[in-house]
């Protein structure tokens, strides 16, 4: 469904040239939940923005259902790392969630229904009338997720969405994402720098090298579909997988330092 081929992105400007992503190739199947994990600054955000049509790659291409992505495609939704700056503070929660729907050809009743349904899914049905800045960080990120859900995307791109929330909230939100994925059958590409999070969430983990970035390894997470914070994290298989990914990333960092 999602095809990334030979993706390369070089930032150029003011005499500086940064090769953020060198050569990335991978695919994501319909209905899959894939985690991309890599050290900070390795180009994860860059990659995701190229996939989402927010940046034009310097080389290679991204295909969605065989069609080349050249701008934000209608079937994709993006959840940004900076939740506090992604919601519009002049709109109430309900209006924030509804705004993207106004670009679609939907009746008012249908929009209402989608907004209510999405907010219920993230457990924030009561917050429709609140302003984003009246909510905690974790709640704001839930609203951003609800906004993406209401948009009914086929592909959901998430860029380190939980990097800035506290550990407890983070665990809740991870379970929320897995729950939504199972309920709604959305394809999710989830970016994180947290190895545990990648292994806990993903059906598959793609490990990126340090910059200049290539795919270092892809591994299937053969944990049961039914996961929970308490048992999954102490599962010996979980420990094996996370150790493996950890070693890969360490090796990637050393490799980068040596070369």
């Amino acid at each position, binding site marked *: 469904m999602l095809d990334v081929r030979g993706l390369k992105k070089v930032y150029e400007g003011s005499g500086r040239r940064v090769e953020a992503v060198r050569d990335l190739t991978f695919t994501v199947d319909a209905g899959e939940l894939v985690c991309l994990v890599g050290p900070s600054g390795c180009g994860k955000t860059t990659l995701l*923005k190229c996939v*989402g*049509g*927010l940046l034009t790659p310097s080389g290679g291409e991204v295909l969605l259902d065989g069609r080349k992505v050249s701008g*934000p495609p*209608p079937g*994709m*939704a*993006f959840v*940004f790392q*900076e939740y506090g*700056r*992604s919601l*519009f*503070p*002049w*709109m109430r929660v309900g209006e924030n969630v509804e*705004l*993207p729907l*106004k*670009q679609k050809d939907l009746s008012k009743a249908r929009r209402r229904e989608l907004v209510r349904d999405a907010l219920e899914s993230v457990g924030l049905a009561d917050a429709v009338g609140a*302003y984003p*800045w*009246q909510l905690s960080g974790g709640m704001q990120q839930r609203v951003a997720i609800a906004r993406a859900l209401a*948009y009914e995307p086929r592909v959901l791109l998430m860029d380190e969405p939980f990097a800035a929330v506290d550990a407890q909230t983070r665990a809740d939100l991870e379970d929320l994402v897995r729950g939504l994925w199972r309920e709604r059958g959305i394809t999710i590409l989830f970016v994180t720098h947290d190895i545990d999070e990648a292994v806990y969430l993903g059906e598959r983990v793609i490990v990126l090298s340090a910059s200049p970035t290539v795919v270092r390894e892809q591994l299937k997470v053969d944990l049961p579909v039914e996961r929970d914070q308490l048992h999954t994290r102490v599962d010996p298989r979980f420990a094996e997988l996370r150790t493996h990914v950890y070693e890969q990333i360490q090796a990637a960092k050393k490799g980068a330092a040596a070369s």
Partner: protein
Amino acid sequence: MRRALLRLVFTVALPALLVTVWWVASAGSTDVYWPPLRTILEAFPDVWTAERLRGDVLPSVLRLAGGYALAAVVGVALGTVIGSYRRVRAVCEPVLEFLRAVPPPVLVPVIMLFAGIGDTMKVTVIAVGCVWPVLLNTVEGVRAVDPVMAETARSYGITGVARLRNLVLRSASPQIFAGLRQALSIGIILMVISEMFAASNGLGFTIVQFQRGFAIPDMWTGILVLGLLGFLLSVVFQWVERRVLGWYHGLRASARRSP
């Protein structure tokens, strides 16, 4: 209730004190140019009859409203265009800096050459003077749109008019209002000055007439009316601002509580 009362006391205290000082200090005055406040207040109802309010205050207010509205519309529209396009900004910036540096009152004789001495001239003078703070603040506000919000809008296909209405103008609105506020005091000054140059009615005209006819207490009542008008307009402005920028004040207050 008690707090509201206390606030009222605080608001009224200084004006009351100043009026008392004026009253006492001028009580025994025999200076023609400094009549006792008592004399001024006694003259007030005789001078500012309903007829005079209709014949002189109303035309002034209408000119101000016309010029101010024109400046607001033109300033926000041009400011949005200039703020949105880097190229346009590069071309316009030096010219804007020059035009802004010209003190608006010197425009009166120039504009009289083109627009005559009628209402058109006065409305034009007010508009030309008021447009700069609105324009320049709008440019700054539009430029400062948060890049994450801009990308959010783009990823959800919010473009064109919807983007302008829901993102750009809303995000720039605190700055736009700062400009409008500056413009309001400039507008009142220009209203009076333009009426002093050439007019057959209006507040500025009336005050000058009194002064020339040595009706000094009457002249002072005119100045009081001007002060009251300015005060009233600023109260109305604040009321509108509270409604439109309620979200902004809330956001700032919440940012102060949890930095």
